[in-house]
């Protein structure tokens, strides 16, 4: 049977390809974890970095990464939700919409260096905000927006039309229909999208080097008033993230154990992304069940 044999061969080839891909993935993860994990300790996770050698812990950087991520998401989720709804619901199918879509996609494919430099010249220099969490968050928002917007639009459009008709035929406004009926159904897809973009944001360095800065001033973790200069929550302080830290240790680090430090930091970063992914997945499912009352 020719067809059957072809089928068999094709299946074998695909399995080989997958094996190769999985092999690469496992190698990468193993490489990072094996090189890094032995150097990870509690004091490494919570300690502060020695500013001159780059040695020491990464507590502040870890916090900065999460803080920046949260701030970025706080800014970008509402905007992309609004924009996604606009595209899914209000945008007519004409040249203007297609221009808007192109604009969004161009933004998403801009190299992050360029975004970073733009953020630098605009926020840091022009608006004199300086190297700060907020500058970094806005720069990250720039390239988070297109990803999230596209994802939200797609998730919303994937909800069957008859759900929309159901809402509209009851006299609900378009907005109410979209927010109360379509959005909950689209939620798992949206959460997955947020996870994916969160991963990218978490690992981004190029855009942050010039915006959030490369220094992690020691902060006072007992002071949670965002207005205080020493507070970790102060959005106007410079904030080196984990990814930037890895970059810096690798490029300028003077410590004799620089490579171990960066390996350890990389391992922590990967694990953080992993935990974050898992958490968001669980949350997505939970929300979905809550909202749709299924099971």
């Amino acid at each position, binding site marked *: 049977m020719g067809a059957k044999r072809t089928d068999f061969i094709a299946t074998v080839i695909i399995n080989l390809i997958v094996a190769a891909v999985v092999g690469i993935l496992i190698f990468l993860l193993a490489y990072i974890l094996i090189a890094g994990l032995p150097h990870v300790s509690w004091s490494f996770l919570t300690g502060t970095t020695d500013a001159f050698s780059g040695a020491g812990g990464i507590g502040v950087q870890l916090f900065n990464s999460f803080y920046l991520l949260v701030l970025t998401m706080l800014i970008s989720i509402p905007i992309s939700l609004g924009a996604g709804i606009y595209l899914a619901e209000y945008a007519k199918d004409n040249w203007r919409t297609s221009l808007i879509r192109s604009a969004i996609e161009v933004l998403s494919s801009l190299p992050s260096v360029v975004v970073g430099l733009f953020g630098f010249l605009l926020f840091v220099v022009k608006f004199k905000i300086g190297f700060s969490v907020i500058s970094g968050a806005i720069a990250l928002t720039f390239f988070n927006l297109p990803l999230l917007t596209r994802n939200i639009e797609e998730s919303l459009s994937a909800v069957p039309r008859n759900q929309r008709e159901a809402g509209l035929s009851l*006299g609900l406004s378009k907005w109410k229909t979209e927010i109360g009926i379509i959005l909950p159904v689209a939620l798992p897809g949206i959460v997955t999208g947020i996870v994916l973009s969160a991963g990218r944001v978490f690992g981004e360095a190029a855009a942050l080097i010039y915006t959030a800065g490369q220094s992690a001033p020691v902060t006072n973790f007992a002071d949670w008033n965002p207005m205080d200069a020493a507070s970790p929550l102060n959005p106007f302080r410079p904030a080196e993230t984990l990814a930037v830290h890895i970059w810096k240790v690798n490029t300028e680090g003077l410590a004799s154990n620089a490579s171990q430090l960066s390996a350890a930091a990389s391992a922590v970063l990967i694990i953080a992304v992993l935990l974050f992914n898992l958490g968001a997945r669980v949350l997505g499912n939970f929300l979905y069940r809550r909202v749709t009352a299924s099971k």
Partner: protein
Amino acid sequence: MLKQYSFEKTAVQTFAGNVSLAMRTENLQVFYGANHAMHDADLGFPKNQITALIGASGSGKSTYLRSLNRMNDGIATVTGKIWYHDVDINEPNVNIYEIRRHIGMVFQRPNPFAKSIRENIVYALKANGIKGKAELEERVETSLKGAALWDEVKDSLDKSALALSGGQQQRLCIARSIAMEPDVLLLDEPCSALDPISTVKVEETLLQLQKKYSIIIVTHNMQQAARVSSQCAFFHLGHVMEYTPTATMFSNPQIPATQDYISGSFG
């Protein structure tokens, strides 16, 4: 190829002066871009009766029905007048949300929200400002009873509506519509996705509901039209060919097109 029937020869009743009408259309025309999908429909729908719209696929039944509560807004261009309580609701400045509250709609494929059974009914009520817990509870019960679903679901109001069978889902959609206490209920082939048993249930429900509502139903199933409707409109290629009491249409169709369609030798 389809037989050619003259669109000049039609038989459309006008209820001159003796029946109270829930809605009426005058010169209703619908265009999908350049596609002229509905020509000059002049139909009146008596209060508290069931009117059936029949005709072959693509004849414009759904198009016409969806125009009645402005569900074609943004999809098609609808011209002509739609009278409802002496107001032409086809004017741009009417409040379409208000119209749809008064003119409910149920679709071909059951489309309950992905929420609990109770939430399905309560959601639109809340959105319209009805807050009282007691009132909401009461509306849930009366509407589910009205749609003949109460007994089957009263113990599982918090279960997902998606777990119901197709027929139950469709009755839930009817319940959801009537919870808004509309005047008119539009149904677009509500039984075509259902098995015969569910179909019978829905039909019984409709016969009950006509005491309170005026009902317009699109159906492919001529037996169904015969069973439930008081009058029947036959659509063909975007034209209303005949509009007569159901008994008349099935026993004594007035024009050749209807005769052929009823006897199944059409097309």
